[in-house]
């Protein structure tokens, strides 16, 4: 079927600006992804899945520049013992990165492994992304698979002693970067992945994560504070039996952020938790789009999203739990809440359930409202200033999401960061 004219011309224009890296073992996957993009077309605001977020600046051939933001804050996760993998405006920086050898994992740059004829990466690169295109299309992710200029393949074979940390630096106001990472977690293996930094003026990031039976992956992201950056990220996760995937994302500012998480529970007794906290101030549009598919017995999934919005910020949540026929004893939970600190901000949500199995317990809740006047009064009557009391209640509101982070040290670092930001805004 032909695409609508507007969509066709926007897609053609964008594809015209990109070059597909030829040769190498990922070439077939890249070409398949390109044909997916051509068939689907890039998103436009008329697409139902982009009802609440305008995709134009993420899609347009022309890039909107973003001034580099300088801050006196120490970068997130500084001081943590971790394996640093640094990208500057979407290009791997070997000098700034650590030595990539660590017991329990193999880390390779995509560009290096592409020269090989046989590599496990061919079984994963673009595979979960392609699976994630139904029932809802995610053209920006397919575009990423086709054109990603850089990225890392991580094979977790054991239990590495420290987290793997991706650091995305933004130094060029006109950077337009596409990164694609793949992560394979073997049976019984366990690792933590950290991501932080503003990355680029426009950032398209895909991570495909395949967790084998009994594997565990913790994933914590802190998206950079650059006020003008735009980001579209996709995380595709496939879970084997008794495996665990837990993710948390903290977002503070940025003109536009669209985070999509697509999780397939394929093995019995698997657990998937996805959480997010965001603080938006001013010209800020933040969109969490989550799609969890239960296709096995006894699966457990949790989605916990909290958004604090003010000065005209917009928060979006689109979450879905799909329980396929036969996925009995599924336990699905989803909560999305917003705290609107003033009348100019807005919260737009579409929390969905689609259920084809009868012996399940699935629920979702969504609330939106202002700060609790009674709680505020309580604190003020005990001598706490209005701004401090507001911050305290805001932190308490966000705590339920931060609580999803299992590692206490990381959780504490996140809370400290939030406190700092709230204080800074006063």
């Amino acid at each position, binding site marked *: 079927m032909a695409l609508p004219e507007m969509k066709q011309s926007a897609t053609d224009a964008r594809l015209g600006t990109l070059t597909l890296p030829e040769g190498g073992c990922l070439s077939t996957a890249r070409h398949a992804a390109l044909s997916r993009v051509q068939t689907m077309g890039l998103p436009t605001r008329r697409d139902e899945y982009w009802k609440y977020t305008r995709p134009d600046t993420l899609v347009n051939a022309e890039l909107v520049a973003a001034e580099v933001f300088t801050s006196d804050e120490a970068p997130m996760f500084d001081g943590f013992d971790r394996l640093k993998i640094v990208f500057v405006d979407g290009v791997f920086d070997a000098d700034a990165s650590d030595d990539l050898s660590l017991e329990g994992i193999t880390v390779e740059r995509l560009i290096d492994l592409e020269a090989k004829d046989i590599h496990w990466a061919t079984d994963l690169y673009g595979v979960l992304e392609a699976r994630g295109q139904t029932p809802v299309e995610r053209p920006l992710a397919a575009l990423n698979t086709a054109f990603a200029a850089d990225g890392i393949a991580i094979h977790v074979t054991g239990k590495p002693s420290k987290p793997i940390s991706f650091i995305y630096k933004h130094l060029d106001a006109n950077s337009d970067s596409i990164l694609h990472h793949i992560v394979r977690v073997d049976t019984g293996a366990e690792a933590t992945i950290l991501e932080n930094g503003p990355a680029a003026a426009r950032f398209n990031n895909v991570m495909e994560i395949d967790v084998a039976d009994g594997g565990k992956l913790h994933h914590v992201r802190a998206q950079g504070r650059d006020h003008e950056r735009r980001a579209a990220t996709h995380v595709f996760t496939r879970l084997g039996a008794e495996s665990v995937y837990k993710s948390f994302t903290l977002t503070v500012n940025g003109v536009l952020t669209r985070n999509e998480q697509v999780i397939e529970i394929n093995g019995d007794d698997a657990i998937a938790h996805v959480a997010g906290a965001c603080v938006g101030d001013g010209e800020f549009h933040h969109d969490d789009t989550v799609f969890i598919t239960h296709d096995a017995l006894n699966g457990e999934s949790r989605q916990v999203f909290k958004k604090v919005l003010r000065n005209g910020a917009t928060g979006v949540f689109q979450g879905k739990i799909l329980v396929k026929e036969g996925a009995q004893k599924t336990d699905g939970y989803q909560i999305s809440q917003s705290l*609107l600190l003033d009348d100019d901000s807005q919260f737009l*949500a579409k929390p*969905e359930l*689609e259920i084809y199995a009868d012996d*399940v*317990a699935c*629920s*979702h*809740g*969504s609330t939106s409202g202002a700060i609790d006047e009674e709680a505020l009064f309580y604190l003020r009557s005990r001598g706490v200033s209005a701004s401090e009391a507001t911050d305290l209640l805001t932190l308490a509101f966000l705590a339920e999401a931060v609580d999803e982070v299992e590692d206490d040290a990381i959780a504490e670092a996140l809370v400290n960061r939030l406190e700092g930001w709230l204080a800074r805004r006063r």
Partner: protein
Amino acid sequence: MAALDQTQVKDGVDQETVDAVAAISTYKYGWDTDIEMEYAPKGVNPDIVRLISEKNEEPEWMTEWRLQAFERWEKMDEPDWAMVNYPEIDFQDQYYYARPKSMEVKPKSLDEVDPKLLATYEKLGIPLKEQMILAGVEGAEDMPAEGRKVAVDAVFDSVSVGTTFQDELKKAGVIFCSISEAIKEHPELVKKYLGTVVPVTDNYYATLNSAVFSDGSFVYIPPNTRCPMELSTYFRINAENTGQFERTLIIADKGSYVSYLEGCTAPQRDTAQLHAAVVEIIVEEDAEVKYSTVQNWFPGDEEGKGGIYNFVTKRADCRGDRSKVMWTQVETGSAVTWKYPSCILRGEESQGEFYSIAITNNYQQADTGTKMVHLGKNTKSRIVSKGISAGKAQNTYRGLVSMHPKAKDSRNYTQCDSLLIGSECGAHTVPYIEVKNNSSRVEHEATTSKVDDDQLFYCRQRGMDEEEAVALVVNGFCKEVLQALPMEFAMEAQQLVAISLEGSVG
């Protein structure tokens, strides 16, 4: 029943619930009336639109209005976003107008109506004689005579057969008649309000309805009047391959109150039939409208053959301050349901409520819910939706709650629960929540489950045996909605749902 007999019943869903749902699948109203009919030629085109207008002896402006709608409709695409699947509808392979031959000359009173038609309604349990009260309503004998009366407008295929209690209503200043009559007798009211809540261009089916609607009901309640009895319209599709397109317009003027009931049935046939209605309600200052529906169109047989495709646009506009509207629906029929009774809360402190039970069985598909659009300050809305899915059926709640920037201090509470019986059915929830100011509070909760273990545990702790506990929990599942129904409908609804298992245990 065959389909359900094979259904694996999970622990916790008790047999009585299953039987009750199964009983609904044996459709009681599947017979047809053998009566000589007069049809317009098959298909829809400007000539058919003119013909329908002519048959209803409409003025020129009405014909023009229809033709414009038709022109618009031809340029529109059928919506495909609902979670329903059905074979493509050939809109040219339908009759758009069918009336009993005996209705050619409009009867002056019910005495002149063809006895076959009266017998049809009698068989359906709808009293068209004014002295009668609804049969079987519990406790009706004890009520004062005034309270028992229900005025009925009976619509048979494309025409209104008759409206009861018109004289008595007239004394109170209430106008209750068929819409075709209203276009002739009260053109100023129709002109002023028709298409102002559901505009001609609203959606594919509403636009089609605007072009070809044949009849329906018209209600006007004058200022500061409490309608002396409940009003009701009973829709019956009888003719084969015929679409029913009725239009209902209800105007509740300042400070008035009316409770309106709607019922519908159709014969059992192998081919699917189309029903695309539009209901518009205008609620002025301090007025209140209760609109209750028991929708029991033929749902198709156990194999999913036949049944009604029910594409309905219902909307209430709370224009005045402190106006109130309440939608209650029990949806058990239709092969495909596409229906979202909505409230535009424009007036300050206006209120909208939506209570719904949707039961799907066999191959039925229901995509239903509501829209609460808060525009005025201090507006309130409440949504309670209960979906029960059995057999191979799909049941979807789809809704919108929107708080506009000016709708300060508004409030919404939404509760959607789904119950699944059998492993081949589906239950889905698709809510849209849009909050654009911070003084409003929106709460949405949805659950999908078999009978809740915690609730069972609570009951068992208090000494009930398992069966008793299940009965109580399932009973409670629908009660909130059943209680919102006026008594006249409670009986029918209870029979239909039959999930209120009161007294059945112990």
